[in-house]
């Protein structure tokens, strides 16, 4: 099974998803991220989904859950680089990803994190 790498930049964990998301991959990512958050005591998580073309309701819900989990470790989650088609799909599915902040690109996401902390 493929794993999504988690990079630590300063006090931010950077996750760039470059593969087609499978349900197990996302669950694995969620576990890895929780472990990493404890280990690094990061205060922010950036999830870059620029390369992701398809998001279904399960993955949408998992993204929200990742946001809630990070909040428990006092870390803010920012989802960056969502494609228009993905945004339209999620809205049509009725998912608004509450609890997760969004930004147009990684740079803006970092700005958002540094501004809020």
């Amino acid at each position, binding site marked *: 099974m493929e794993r999504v790498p988690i990079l630590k930049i300063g006090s931010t964990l950077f996750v760039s998803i470059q593969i087609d998301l499978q349900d197990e991959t996302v669950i694995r990512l969620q576990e890895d991220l929780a472990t990493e958050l404890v280990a690094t005591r990061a205060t922010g998580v950036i999830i870059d989904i620029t390369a992701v073309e398809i998001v279904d309701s399960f993955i949408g819900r998992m993204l929200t859950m990742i946001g809630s989990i990070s909040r428990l470790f006092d870390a803010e989650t920012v989802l960056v680089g969502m494609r228009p088609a993905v945004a*339209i799909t999620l809205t049509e599915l009725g998912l*608004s990803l509450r609890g997760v902040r969004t930004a147009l690109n990684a740079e*803006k996401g970092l700005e958002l994190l540094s501004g809020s902390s």
Partner: protein
Amino acid sequence: MDVDGSQARMAAFLRDHQDKIVGRWSELVVAGVRGRSSVVEARRELEDIYSLIIAVMSGPGEAGPGEQARVELRAVLAEFSRSRARSGFAPGETALGVFSLKEAVYELIADAADLMPEFLAFSRLIDNLGLYTFESYAAARERIITDQATSMLELSTPVVRLWDGIIAVPLVGTLDSARTQLVMEKLLETLVATGADHAVLDITGVPTVDTEVAQHLLKTVNAARLLGAECTVSGIRPQVAQTIVSLGIEFGDIATKATLADALAHALSRAGLKVGPA
């Protein structure tokens, strides 16, 4: 009755009286369209059709040169109907262009009573051609309407840049599902392309806001939020505000402003910018 023979006799008659018939035909056509084209102009158009009709009638029935002329005649008639449709002639006026040939011929043939069966065959041909003209006209009109609908859809959804990082979508006209979908796509694409993080949806030009339109607006705002951009809805007129409230539509935490100017000011302050006297 020998159909081919009578058609050939009719063709011979038409050929002999070509000048007279085409002249009269052009006059009738021009009278029919109330002088919107000149006799000379009409004559040039009709002469082509006329010689093709003769070719169709003198050629053998199914295959050979007659068939070729038939195809050509249809193409010429289709073009004739298309140009009429484009220049805004009524369908009746277009069909009259073909049918009045019957009248022109009848005026001549009335004296020679022995050509009556030939005239009937000829008349049937003209009826078919007239119907074909009608069909081509309708098809051309249909295409014009579709083209216009498409270009209207494209025209009606511009996305404009108001400021660095602030874009606006002035919505004019009724919002239906197809249009909202287009607006949403264009808005999101522009957000990504320009890197803007604030969008203003201006609904000054939207005549009515019902639950469906509101639903569409909310969807658009939510999709923009997923990309990380904030949306403001502006241009809500008093009547529209009353409808929204009486329908019980909730805009939730979406910022709404009365005018585009207010929305711009709001967006600027969110971006940490201030406009003051120079």
